[in-house]
């Protein structure tokens, strides 16, 4: 059927900021959808609050709104733009929920907007547990048995009829609290009593436990003519009990028989038909009892999901693009398969390789959080790897994770050494067993230790419930490691004695040169030389959707060790762009955004772009972003293999964040041409001594500082420069292990952590400038001309990591004099470093003095935000500069200071880590960002808060408790709030200060001293906003409790006085006028050519 002509305008909803569980896969699917819609000539309207996305680039949609994703704002956009249809299946759960609420409130009906992709009934059927259960029973698909009990007797009856083990979930408790597993009658009784008490409505869900079952997923697509295809199956290596977003996953499923596979296919078809998806995709999750093959359905997502992004990248099938075409009426046979260029989308992709997905965690950022995986997702990113067997993909996957591991252990980074394993003390064996039994992010490494310590495959399987096929594959790797070990050198400078057959076998099973060098007591370079001499080289195979059956037009590549190379390096001039690897805190979508823009710019310049990345969630790993895509880990070995094959003119390292920048030096040493700012200049910026020297030469200020390798040295430095001091390791991103020490005691503790992270480099110690204003400057240069992209003023005072701080562009409190000093310093340093490309400088302004904190000679996290605020694609221009163009010719020679205000705000994953304090500090903790844009600061700020999910109140009660230093400033804040009609509650100390200034305030007792206390009020929903600044270095117990309740009950909060001030001015705006929406295109109208 041809595309629908009754639709002209389509509204697309994005997924908002990157949070755990909803990452940049929705930028990938959303931008594919935008392209697919515009290809068909539809007028496309996009809303998303996340500026770091490719989809919000002005060229992607006809009209782009960077506005909060709330029903109110979307309604305003609908009223203004009057779309005919809304496509909500590509914006994750956020997009789907918004569409659902728009429907429920009658807004879609009122404006005559149709929900395409998934009908409202399909969404309800998949989302509403009762409807879903009923629908599944209708088509004879089993759901886990369960019942709701309101009394002990009832619960016992339900429980005993289902059988043990049972999962008990008290109703309406937050974050699954109070849930438990009962293995016997006694436990069932005990937990029922407890659970009924915990539940505010005295209800408890008693459910059949499917812990340890296999978790199998299917990606399914269906069109309006009822054509259904399976994209791929996926098997979770971690069984049920670990969230699939945290699980190690392989595609296709490895341990299903053909009969089982067909049954899953058949069930999937029945399910997608019953749910009623009539033009789009769905992800279906099953659990299968490994002992008898029984299958139950876990859930259905009638939308694009994280798994569909993975399925897309694993098979080459562009699910989002095809789903969009189906949503506007096409059938599968009418949509071409762009990878093969010959077949249609009505076929099922088949693969001739094994795909492995592994998740990236950042527990190190939240030391108080339990390092345990369960049904609440905790991963912040993922890496995908491809190999000709599981073992190769597995090892490549581990080294893709950017946790400085080079495969399945034996890389010199193992926590438990071989000697310890040989001894295998009882304590160690117990630890290993525990680490295998309870899912955690290090489990696979403990499986290796277990195998080395002689535990049997059977025991490991029964401890972990991981299928023995996977465990045995891991065992094979340990065996190969053992074989290689037999050829170990006595001295590291000896010739390598490894037989060629074994070397080849090791490479075919994914061992990196680095691992082999470690096992053999040799050097990585030596292993590499030997390999090259013996012609054991990586070859490249294709992801072509068809296992080689059709010659593919637009495939992508993965490396393996086989006989023939299928890579097709072109003769054109070409440039390699190194991507950023898996998302993690400190390195996210912003860098992928820059890499994509580099590819676009290269295309414009007629140069072949070659992308190297391993993150399946990204736009950069889409098949049509670059001319050639290598789905590979970002390690020296893997990159050099590609460079030697492609022989590019140059390599871009400054866009992918710290990952590629860290490789710059070794690549340079290997003779690679690094484009942009010279390695010499990079070294000046990164080397403390040389940097200091440069500042001195230019007459610029820097906080007093020094370096140290241990506590003794650190103590000396701190004494000299005076407390408080900022302690941080060298060469890290996201403020890893960065802390502010107010005294010697704290210094000692921090130095230890920092030294560990820093490794062979010294720990840096800076004088901490309390209450200074921090400023971020992004600029671009071509070696001669330098232009500031944006000067961003932090809203929080110094001490909050720039990745976490809210920022305003233009600045809003800095004096003209300070700004002048900042500009002057910026241009002087750019000139001194002969900047070519992008650079980010951080300043602190205190008492009208401007201090240089840091210079990063690479694209910064704020590039996409600044680009959108000023309406200039900085990364694209920077790429052209890297290729030798100058800024004058490119027409960007003057700093743009926009009339409107743009605010960047960060979002945090605190709700995933119960018990972690929400205070911000020098270590970055945010996962994503939003942008608020409007004509003045107040409006822009409130939009940024709404977009970040803060439900700021218009009336009600506000609790204030601030440290002594902030008491003077909080008076103004409180007074304004009273004027706006709010009631103020305060802690004793704060109340005294407010009372003195004549502000009416209710005093609340300390938590231990009386009730109702603040916690009671929060629980009862009587507090609408909490303003709480930490009292000092060691926060008081009360404060921690208050702040953890804020997260638990989702109450808006601020933890700094400056943010409180901004919030109050925002609330004022909210009360006085209605917020309006304005598109990016309208903001930047004048600047258009």
């Amino acid at each position, binding site marked *: *059927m041809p595309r629908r002509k009754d639709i002209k305008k389509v509204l697309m909803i994005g997924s908002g900021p990157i949070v755990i569980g909803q990452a940049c896969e929705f930028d990938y699917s959303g931008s594919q959808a935008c392209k697919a819609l515009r290809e068909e000539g539809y007028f496309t309207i996009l809303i998303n609050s996340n500026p770091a996305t490719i989809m919000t680039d002005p060229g992607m949609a006809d009209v782009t709104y960077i506005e909060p994703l709330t029903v109110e704002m979307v309604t305003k956009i609908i009223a203004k733009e009057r779309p005919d249809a809304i496509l909500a299946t590509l914006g994750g759960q956020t997009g789907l929920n918004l569409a659902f609420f728009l429907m429920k409130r009658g807004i879609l009906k009122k404006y005559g907007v149709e929900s395409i992709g998934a009908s409202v009934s399909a969404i309800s059927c998949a989302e509403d547990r009762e409807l879903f259960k009923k629908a599944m029973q209708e088509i004879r698909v089993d759901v886990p048995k369960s019942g709701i009990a309101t009394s002990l007797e009832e619960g016992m009856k339900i429980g005993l009829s289902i059988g043990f083990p049972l999962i008990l979930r008290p109703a309406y408790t937050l974050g699954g609290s109070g849930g438990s597993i009962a293995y016997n009658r006694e436990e069932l009784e005990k937990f029922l009593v407890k659970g009924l008490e915990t539940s505010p409505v005295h209800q408890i869900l008693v459910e059949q436990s499917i812990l340890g079952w296999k978790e199998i997923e299917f990606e399914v697509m269906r*069109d309006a*003519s*009822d*054509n*259904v*295809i399976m994209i791929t199956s996926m098997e979770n290596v971690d069984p049920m009990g670990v969230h699939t977003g945290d699980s190690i996953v392989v595609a*296709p*499923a*490895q*341990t*299903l*028989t*053909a*009969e*089982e*596979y*067909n*049954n899953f*296919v*058949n*069930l999937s*078809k029945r399910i997608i038909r019953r749910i009623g998806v009539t033009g789009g995709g769905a992800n279906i999750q099953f659990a299968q009892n*490994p*002992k*008898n*093959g029984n299958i139950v359905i876990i859930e259905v997502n009638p939308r694009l999901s994280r798994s569909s992004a993975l399925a897309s990248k694993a098979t080459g099938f562009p699910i989002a693009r095809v789903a969009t075409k189906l949503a506007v009426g096409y059938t*599968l*046979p009418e949509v071409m398969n762009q990878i093969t260029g*010959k*077949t*249609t989308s*009505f*076929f*099922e*992709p*088949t*693969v*001739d*390789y*094994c795909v492995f997905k592994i998740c990236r965690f950042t527990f190190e950022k939240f030391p108080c959080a339990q390092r345990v995986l369960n049904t609440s997702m905790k991963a912040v990113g993922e890496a995908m790897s491809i190999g*000709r*067997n*599981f073992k190769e993909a597995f090892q490549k996957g581990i080294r893709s994770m950017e946790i400085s591991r080079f495969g399945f252990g034996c890389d010199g980074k193992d926590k438990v050494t071989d000697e310890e394993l040989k001894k295998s003390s009882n304590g160690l064996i117990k630890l290993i067993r525990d680490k295998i039994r309870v899912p955690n992010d290090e489990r696979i490494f403990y499986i290796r230790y277990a195998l080395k310590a002689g535990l049997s495959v059977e025991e490991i399987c029964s401890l972990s419930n991981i*299928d*023995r*096929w996977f465990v*045995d594959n891991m065992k*094979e790797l340990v065996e190969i490691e053992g074989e290689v070990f037999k050829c170990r050198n006595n001295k590291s400078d000896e010739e390598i004695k490894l037989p060629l057959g074994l070397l080849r076998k090791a490479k075919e099973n994914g061992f990196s040169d680095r691992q082999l060098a470690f096992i053999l007591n040799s050097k990585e370079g030596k292993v590499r030389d030997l390999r090259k001499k013996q012609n054991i080289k990586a070859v490249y*195979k294709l992801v072509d959707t*068809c*296992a*080689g*059956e*059709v*010659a593919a037009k637009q495939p992508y590549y993965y490396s393996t060790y*086989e*006989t*023939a190379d*299928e890579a097709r390096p072109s003769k054109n001039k070409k440039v390699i762009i190194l991507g950023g690897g898996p998302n993690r805190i400190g390195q996210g979508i912003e860098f992928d955004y820059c890499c994509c823009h580099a590819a676009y710019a290269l295309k414009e310049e007629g140069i072949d772009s070659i992308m190297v990345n391993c993150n399946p969630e990204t736009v950069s790993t889409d098949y049509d972003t670059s001319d050639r895509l290598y789905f590979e880990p970002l390690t020296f070995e893997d990159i050099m293999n590609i460079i030697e094959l492609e022989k590019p003119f140059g390599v871009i390292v400054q866009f992918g964040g710290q990952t590629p920048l860290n490789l710059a030096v070794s690549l340079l040493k290997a003779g690679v041409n690094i484009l942009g700012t010279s390695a010499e200049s990079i070294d000046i910026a990164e080397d403390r001594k040389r940097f200091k020297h440069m500042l001195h030469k230019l007459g610029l200020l820097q906080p007093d500082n020094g370096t140290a390798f241990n506590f003794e040295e650190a103590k000396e430095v701190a004494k000299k420069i005076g407390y408080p001091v900022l302690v941080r390791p060298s060469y890290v991103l996201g403020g890893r292990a960065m802390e502010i020490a107010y005294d010697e005691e704290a210094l000692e503790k921090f130095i230890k952590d920092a030294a560990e992270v820093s490794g062979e480099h010294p720990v840096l110690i800076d004088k901490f400038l309390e209450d200074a204003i921090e400023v971020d400057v992004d600029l671009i240069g071509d070696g001669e001309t330098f232009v500031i992209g944006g000067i961003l003023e932090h809203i929080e005072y110094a001490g909050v990591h720039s990745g976490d701080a809210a920022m305003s562009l233009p600045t809003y409190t800095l004096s003209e004099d300070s700004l002048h000093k900042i500009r002057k310093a910026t241009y002087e340093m750019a000139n001194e470093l002969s900047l070519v490309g992008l650079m980010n400088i951080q300043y602190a302004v205190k008492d009208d003095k401007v201090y240089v904190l840091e210079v990063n000679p690479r694209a910064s996290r704020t590039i996409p935000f600044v680009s959108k605020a000023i309406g200039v694609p900085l990364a694209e221009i920077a790429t052209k500069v890297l290729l030798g163009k100058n800024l004058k010719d490119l027409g960007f020679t003057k700093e743009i200071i926009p009339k409107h205000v743009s605010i960047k705000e960060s979002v945090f994953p605190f709700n995933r880590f119960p018990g972690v304090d929400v205070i911000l500090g020098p270590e970055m903790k945010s996962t994503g960002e939003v942008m608020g844009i409007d004509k003045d600061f107040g409006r822009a700020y409130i939009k940024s808060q709404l977009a970040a999910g803060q439900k700021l109140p218009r009336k009600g009660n506000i609790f204030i408790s601030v440290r002594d230093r902030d008491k003077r400033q909080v008076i103004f804040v409180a007074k304004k709030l009273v004027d706006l009609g709010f009631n103020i509650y305060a802690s004793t100390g704060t109340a005294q200060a407010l009372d003195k200034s004549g502000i009416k305030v209710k005093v609340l007792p300390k938590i231990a001293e009386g009730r109702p206390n603040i916690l009671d009020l929060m629980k009862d929903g009587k507090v609408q906003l909490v303003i709480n600044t930490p009292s000092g270095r060691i926060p008081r117990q009360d404060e921690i409790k208050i702040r953890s309740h804020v997260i638990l009950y989702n109450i808006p909060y601020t933890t700094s006085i400056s943010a409180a001030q901004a919030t109050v001015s925002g609330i004022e705006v909210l009360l006085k006028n209605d917020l309006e929406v304005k598109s990016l295109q309208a903001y930047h109208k004048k600047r258009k050519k």
Partner: protein
Amino acid sequence: MKAILMLEDGKSFLGETEGLKGERIGEVIMNTVVVGYQEMITDPANADKILVLTYPLIGNYGCSPKFNESDNIWLAGLVIKEKSRIFSNWQAKESFDDFVKRHNLLSLYAVDTRTLAVHLRQKGSMLGIISTNCFEAKELLAKIKDFSKNKPLGLLAKISTEKKKQLGLPGKKKIAILDLGITNSIIRQLESLGLSLTILPFNTTAEDILRIKPKGLIISGGPEEITELEKVAENIRPLIGKVPILGISSGNLVLAIVLGVKLNKLKTGHRGVNYPVQSPCSFKGEITVQNHAYVLDPGSLLKIKGLKITSYNLNDRTVEEIESRKLKILGVQYAPSSPGFNEVHNVFNRFMKMLGRN
């Protein structure tokens, strides 16, 4: 033990074998299926072929008698990338290795099957020889040449049932099945329709078929041995128009031969589980299992009165299904496999309709 696969065109691939020694010659074909290795190697349609599986990990879930498509492995040889050393599935009764050894299948593993598959795609399927004892190109190529000159006949006699067999429910609607290499999964589907099934040897004559008074005849799929299929065609010619006939895969080729439709051989054949077919008058299509190298020539087909093409392969527009109400013929080139547990492919329902109520 090292072993070699030498192709007719001189290209060779090294691999390894275990246990069995010797040489096997056959047409080298590739199949892109991910699961179903046991079904694949026991399918009589692959008889005498050297089968290359493009999916690199084989044996993961072991083997079990219930997955057999026939009682034997009919392959000349098997070529794979990696053989799993263990198996893991609750239904598995033995390892893939044991299964293969028990059936004396010469299997070559550790082969760069991707490169082999791409080579076959480019050059078309061709003869090849697997050898464990000779690695001399000249000698091996001579053997291939010799084989192609004196191709052994009588494959259908080996595969087909020797005697008439009765299956299904006696007394119910009677269907005759001409066994050119029928698979267990097709029989299971027919059984679930509650029919009385008479399985007949491949060379049963038209009179003998009419004598058992079937309501309909199914000509099963099997190896595409055109010379032998031509003989079967001669046998059943008198039945056209008298008994409703369903031709499956090579059975459909038999129908084509009877009707005078030209056969074309594809360069590489359709072999996998992901082939889309679509009726020319509908937007609705179907993903099918296919395992055939021959297709019906549409030009010569459309000259026959009353014969219609009811499905095309969407990838290359070849004919996948024909029907004639007048001649009471239904023919599918694809394999009408069960869509799932205890379910029946729609083509069997359509054939039942053609048979009418009685």
